[in-house]
């Protein structure tokens, strides 16, 4: 049984030494090798990217309030949607859950002291910074108007800053690759003794599957973007029809990365949701191995479906048919996950707190996002729906409804662990409600608009679509307010929220056995390895207002402050 006084000492609010206060000064952050600090820096970075790209989104929606010009010229509109897409995809969604949340959580979940290559980890953060700076440089000097897909030959001909932006995306790609390598190796070599592959939390499985994609797909994006830069500067004639190149080839190259990249965006989100549902239902996850394998299955199948972005692009019928067939197979593992989550809730003990509400909102939104994917996988209907607002709505349901919701859910779940302070539950619920409502009001009308024939990337549109666009704009504003309230709640909590102890939610994964915030070495006391979903091991301690592992033992030696390592 837990020993309250010892638990208090090492696990309670009063934990003296943690990764936040172990050293001071900006250098101790800028040159840190601690995965937790790098995770926090990533978090700050991707939030900045989200807000920047979010502002572009709101400007776009505002412009689309009327069919004709309001305040953006056509050229400005094109730059806005391009920057919105490029920054959101490359600088926010891809690094958001893996690099920010994953960096913090993954080593601790494995019971490790750090990721396998801390220097590489820091380097990948700085590559992210450099890449994002290049995107921003492109934005403020010459802007960018190719769409985030950089389709040739337009990207070769436009006068905007394609080279700076593609170079930025190239560097961001390497940031992503290095994170992937790090996570793969960490999962392989640094699991706690006794933790087999099938005792890993499902979030780790999600991140592992993601890392596979990052490692296998992102290099192809790298070479594609280099070839695009060479094409633009030297006209090497591989993608440019003017010199005998093939623009469809570029699309193949691009989507060979970018479709798997979609799963880089969603798989970690699914991992987060698996954790949340289980913890807040206080029940062992249903069908563990099916969820784990479905992550890997999605990762592998994700490589075989890229052509479904090109059904109308001049791709051949035969290849189109193959890609359509394989695309449907991705639906199965996705559906399996959803069914397993529902079964986990069955007969559970469900705490309807903010993270759980986000998880339920995820199931709702991802359900719509996933099911509308069927319309796009079906060849006949995709001919009609391709490149319309239907597609826009579909991928926003997956990426925003999925990834952003999961990111928020994960942040609210792990925030007390990251900063040792609790957020305001009411504000959390309001965030969830606003994001949910705002999101649906924004994107649901776009399905109808799309099937009625509204093409995407249009600065001006026919009057018949006006009502839909107006609803969409109003929804976007609500969504924007929701996101801002969410981050305000979290930031306030990090500095001023009431302190909390090690494990306020009673989760059983290993990171909850550390103090909150964790100490520099993650764990000061001996970690009891138990199944990540065996909640009976967690005993509520009233004095601490936290759960404590029933075999909690104090460290053999009292924790002494250590000097953190830096480069």
């Amino acid at each position: 049984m837990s020993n309250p006084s010892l638990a208090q000492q090492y696990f309670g609010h009063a934990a003296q030494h943690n990764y936040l206060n172990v050293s001071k000064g900006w250098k101790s952050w800028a040159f840190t090798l601690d995965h937790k600090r790098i995770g926090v820096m990533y978090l700050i970075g991707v939030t900045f990217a989200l807000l920047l790209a979010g502002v572009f989104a709101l400007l776009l929606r505002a412009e689309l309030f009327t069919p004709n010009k309001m305040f953006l010229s056509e050229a400005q509109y094109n730059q806005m949607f391009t920057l919105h897409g490029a920054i959101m995809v490359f600088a926010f969604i891809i690094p958001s859950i893996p690099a920010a949340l994953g960096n913090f959580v993954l080593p601790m979940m494995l019971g490790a002291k750090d990721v396998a290559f801390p220097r590489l980890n820091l380097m990948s953060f700085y590559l992210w910074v450099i890449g994002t700076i290049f995107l921003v440089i492109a934005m403020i000097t010459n802007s960018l108007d190719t769409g985030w897909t950089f389709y040739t030959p337009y990207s070769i001909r436009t006068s905007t800053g394609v080279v700076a932006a593609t170079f930025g995306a190239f560097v961001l790609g390497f940031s992503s690759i290095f994170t992937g390598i790090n996570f793969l190796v960490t999962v392989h070599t640094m699991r706690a003794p006794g933790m087999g592959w099938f005792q890993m939390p499902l979030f780790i499985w999600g991140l592992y599957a993601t890392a596979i994609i990052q490692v296998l797909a992102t290099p192809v994006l790298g070479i594609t973007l280099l070839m695009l830069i060479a094409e633009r500067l030297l006209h090497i004639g591989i993608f440019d029809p003017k010199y005998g190149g093939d623009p469809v080839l570029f699309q193949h190259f691009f989507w060979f990365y970018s479709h798997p990249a979609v799963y880089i965006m969603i798989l970690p989100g699914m991992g987060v949701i698996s954790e949340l549902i289980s913890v807040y239902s206080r029940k062992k996850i249903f069908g563990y191995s099916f969820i784990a394998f479905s992550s890997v299955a999605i990762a592998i199948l994700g490589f075989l479906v890229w052509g479904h972005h090109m059904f109308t692009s001049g791709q051949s019928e035969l290849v189109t048919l193959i890609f359509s067939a394989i695309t449907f197979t991705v639906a199965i593992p996705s559906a399996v996950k959803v069914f397993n989550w529902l079964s986990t809730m069955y007969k559970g003990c469900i705490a309807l707190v903010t993270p759980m509400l986000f998880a339920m909102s995820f199931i709702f939104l991802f359900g719509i996002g996933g099911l509308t994917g069927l319309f796009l996988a079906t060849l006949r209907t995709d001919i009609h729906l391709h490149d319309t607002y239907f597609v826009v709505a579909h991928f926003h349901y997956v990426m925003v409804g999925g990834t952003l919701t999961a990111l928020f859910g994960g942040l609210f779940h792990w925030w007390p662990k990251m900063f040792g302070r609790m957020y305001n539950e009411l504000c959390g619920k309001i965030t969830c409600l606003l994001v949910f409502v705002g999101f649906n009001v924004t994107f649901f009308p776009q399905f109808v608009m799309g099937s009625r024939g509204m093409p995407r990337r249009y600065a001006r549109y026919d009057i018949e679509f006006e009502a839909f666009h107006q609803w969409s704009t109003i929804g976007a504003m609500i969504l924007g307010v929701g996101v801002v309230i969410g981050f305000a709640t979290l930031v306030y909590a990090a500095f001023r929220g009431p302190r909390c102890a090690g494990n306020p939610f009673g989760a059983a994964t290993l990171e909850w056995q550390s103090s909150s915030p964790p100490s520099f070495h993650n764990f000061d006391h001996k970690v009891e390895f138990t199944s990540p979903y065996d909640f009976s091991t967690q005993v509520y301690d009233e004095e601490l207002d936290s759960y404590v592992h029933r075999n909690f033992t104090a460290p053999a030696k009292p924790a002494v402050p250590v000097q953190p390592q830096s480069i």
Partner: protein
Amino acid sequence: MTTAHDSHDHGFAHPVSKKLLYGVFFALVLLTIITVVANDLPLGKLDLWVAMGIASIKAFLVMAFFMHMWWEKGINIVFFLSSVLFAVLFVGFLLLDTDSYKEDVEIFPVDLRPGATEVISPLKPVSETPH
């Protein structure tokens, strides 16, 4: 300490014998010479496959012995070979696709290429005269 796989205090250092390394090197040089010579033989369409076959043998030798893959952990081999698998997949789909629409590209007149009238033939006619 010159024999292969000396069992060592620490389990992970496996020095390979010098003889083996030299042997592999000479095999590689030999194969290089063979591939250059084979290139001049009238092999017709086979020549590409011969050249690729020899290159693959060379690659195998380098990977297996210089890169110690012969003694490597299974997981690392699987990872490395999976990269080849994905590359083949990538190329395979692209060949399949481009082959099917090749005709539409070929019948498209060169002088109709976008911007063709500006810079269509950067080539000057080449004179026959040797010098």
